[in-house]
């Protein structure tokens, strides 16, 4: 194994792991803020209980998101130093701005929110969770700006004096069509997870409390209130799930078109479309070397609609895109154009290709299946939201059933893994490039770092991430089972007495 391959595995493992916490953090922080707003407006304890219950789940998840995020920022320099040096002039800025604008805001205000119960005036305390939520979204926006540059490197040019890419137009980086489409796709995709999480946990709690009885048939007043609380939370989560699902699907369509424009090979490989075609593949089994299909089921014409907005129009196939004259290689978008960075770097790139050759196709089975699994899991999540809503209609409540509990665990995992597979697709589909059409991934690695060093760090991260996953899942389930917290008011609100107990302490 060489350092590049291990470094790629490391990036995959650490990024996908980190991104298990990101969608939950982004969506739950905002949804908890909404719950807390409803409590402040209604002063109904039900919503305070929900705020604290889901707030606690958010915090358990947040801690791991923070610590695994540090690795992400350091990893570029450690494993991909030539990439970092080469594009740092463009790529570094969003990362620095993310830390300066988003991370400071998020970490300061989440501390104020956790420890600020009863100490800050209510409205200011509410503002702290909104600021936390906004900061997590800003963080996503900066990272997507950086990532979109790798997919479609606009706003930069190659400087032969400094031997690197340099920023020429920051506005172009921020208006990158891939960036705009990705933000619109990623943010609702996060809420898909948050909605599913809130709904399925509430649904499970409801099955425990009501155990199949209609709410009107429950006699104990406390149980009635609890059933109502969870019914409300299920519906709230399910609606978030369904609405964000619709937005994710719509923006996914836009994103697909932006992708076809900038990275024709990615869409062709997502479809395992070996020859020019307009058919959307429902199922394609291809040779593993990615050269030809063996068996396919298709919807004629649909791919043209998804890619170009016109039913029956075609996209170029893998083989056309691949069989080009490598001596005069030039990366081109759908319209045969190049970004300034792609064209200015072309000569250096040709030297590399002359020396080392280049395999222009990504690993087709990975892109093809990741793309499909993403879509399938997303649809399953939305359907689960609809099923839960229908189930609760006419005052019906679910029964305690073992299979139901098992399914309810899978429901939030479905959109969560849809996120993972989406990223797997978009990053693997970018290959062989670390910056599309400019720098091949092989050239981005750290020239001075040995395979043994990278392997050591992969092993260390995998071990510690594995242990942390067990701890986190354990804590998460424990918190879920514990149910709604007691919210009896404390006597010490706004107390200046030094010896009054803290409203919250580690």
């Amino acid at each position: 194994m060489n350092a590049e391959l291990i470094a790629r595995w490391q990036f995959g493992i650490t990024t996908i792991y980190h991104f298990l916490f990101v969608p939950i953090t982004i969506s739950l922080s905002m949804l908890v803020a909404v719950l807390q707003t409803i409590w402040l407006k209604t002063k109904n304890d039900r919503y305070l209980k929900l705020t604290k219950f889901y707030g606690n789940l958010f915090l358990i998840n947040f801690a791991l998101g923070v610590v695994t995020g540090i690795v992400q920022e350091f990893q570029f320099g450690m494993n991909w130093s030539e990439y970092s040096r080469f594009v740092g002039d463009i790529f570094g800025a969003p990362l620095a701005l993310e830390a300066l604008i988003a991370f400071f805001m998020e970490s300061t205000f989440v501390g104020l929110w956790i420890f600020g119960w009863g100490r800050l005036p209510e409205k200011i305390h509410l503002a702290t969770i909104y600021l936390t939520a906004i900061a997590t979204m800003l963080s996503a926006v900066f990272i997507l700006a950086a990532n979109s540059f790798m997919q479609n490197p606009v706003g930069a040019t190659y400087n032969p004096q400094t031997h690197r890419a340099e920023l020429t137009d920051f506005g172009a980086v921020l208006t990158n069509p891939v960036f705009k489409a990705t933000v619109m796709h990623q943010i609702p995709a996060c809420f898909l997870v948050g909605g599913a999480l809130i709904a399925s946990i509430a649904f499970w709690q409801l099955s425990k409390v009501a155990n199949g009885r209609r709410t009107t048939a429950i006699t104990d007043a406390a149980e009635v209130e609890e059933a109502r609380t969870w019914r409300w939370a299920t519906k709230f989560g399910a609606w978030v799930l369904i609405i964000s699902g619709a937005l994710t699907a719509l923006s996914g369509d836009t994103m697909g078109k932006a992708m076809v424009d900038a990275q024709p090979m990615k869409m062709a490989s997502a479809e395992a479309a070996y020859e020019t075609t307009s058919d959307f593949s429902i199922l394609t089994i291809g040779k593993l070397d990615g050269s030809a299909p063996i068996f396919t089921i298709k919807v004629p014409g649909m791919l043209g609609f998804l890619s170009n907005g016109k039913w029956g129009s075609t996209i170029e196939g893998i083989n056309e895109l691949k069989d080009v004259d490598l001596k005069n290689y030039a990366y081109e978008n759908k319209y045969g154009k190049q970004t300034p960075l792609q064209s200015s770097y072309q000569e250096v790139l040709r030297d590399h290709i002359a020396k080392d050759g280049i395999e222009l196709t990504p690993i087709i089975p990975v892109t093809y299946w990741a793309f499909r699994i993403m879509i399938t899991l997303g649809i399953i999540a939305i359907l689960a939201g609809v099923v839960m809503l229908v189930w609760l209609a006419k005052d019906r409540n679910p029964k305690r059933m073992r299979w139901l509990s098992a399914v309810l665990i899978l429901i939030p995992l479905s959109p969560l893994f849809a996120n993972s597979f989406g990223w797997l697709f978009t990053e693997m589909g970018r290959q062989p490039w670390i910056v599309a059409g400019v720098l091949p991934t092989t050239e981005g690695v750290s020239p001075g770092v040995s395979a043994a060093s990278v392997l050591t760090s992969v092993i260390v991260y995998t071990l510690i991430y594995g242990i942390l996953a067990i701890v986190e899942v354990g804590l998460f389930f424990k918190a879920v089972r514990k149910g709604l917290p007691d919210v009896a008011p404390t006597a010490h609100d706004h107390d200046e007495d030094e010896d009054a107990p803290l409203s919250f302490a580690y």
Partner: protein
Amino acid sequence: MFPILEIAHSPLTPVWFILIAVLWIGFFFLEGFDFGVAMLLPFLGKDETDKRVMVNTIGPTWDANEVWLITAGGAMFAAFPGWYASLFSGLYLPLLLVLLGLIIRGVSFEYRSKHPSSKWRNTFDWMATIGSFLPTLVLGVGFANFVRGIALGPKATLNGDFPVVTTSFWGLFTPFALIGGLLFVILFCAHGAGFIALKTTGHMHDRAGRTATRLGWLAALLMAAWAVMFNTMYAPANGTQHLLTWILAVLAVLLVAVAALLSSRERDGFAFILNGAAIAVMMAAMFVKMWVNIGFRPVGVPFDMWIASSSPYTLKIMTIAACVMVPIVLIYQAWSYWVFRQRISRDSIPSDAVHA
């Protein structure tokens, strides 16, 4: 080899060198006491309540303090991609240790209170302690090596010869580097004890004050040894710079000593500020040495802060962003310290042990 470059030197490059120094100083001033508090957990905390008092002095603010490091890293990436690339890839294993420490430490603060068992809590307390000790020690060793200058040599890439670190992992552990590492550990422990003294009342306050005094004197001794070695073995070639590193190093020694004296007289606030100032001055001395060479000794490959720097256009954008955002960040971070200004005592710790 890169050709001899005719790059116009942007006046913003030095500005960003200074800004990065400021970010590191901010990080060590703030996270220094967080590290110290966590390192002292097993030694100052006699029982569970003591430990909770200690952890809760930094509870609401440690996370934002750590962001100073993330921002320093991000700013190096954005303003000096060459610095970031050579440094982070060159010090691979030390950085892995730092990351490992930061991961287990960050988790332990959040998770320790989620389970009532003392075994659970002790485990996370030790993770906090080890996770604070590792980055402190490694960064102390690291910065001593920047003062000495880490050797760089050329390595071929598609884009020409790239400067890579040629000093081996074990080659980093010179006597000066070991003194540097030890100094960071003791100095931050003293800083942490001073912070606990400032933020608590009762027995914990008294005990922390005594610890701050003792560790403070020890830190002053180490700082003196560091100052002499710095200025005799690894002095800057330039006379003005050398004068400056002498002045700053001696000032750092004096500040630590006065802080120790003040904490013995229970002037907690002054002692804490002076100890923090000592950290800042010590860091400033090191960055004076790193001026232009940014902590490296390149052999056979040209490398300095001008070569490592981003383009003037990127620096301009970053400068505007920093001018707008840094004051805002400072204001709300200061506000969060103001909100949590109350001292904590054993009575402040709520009796309901679990918050899961």
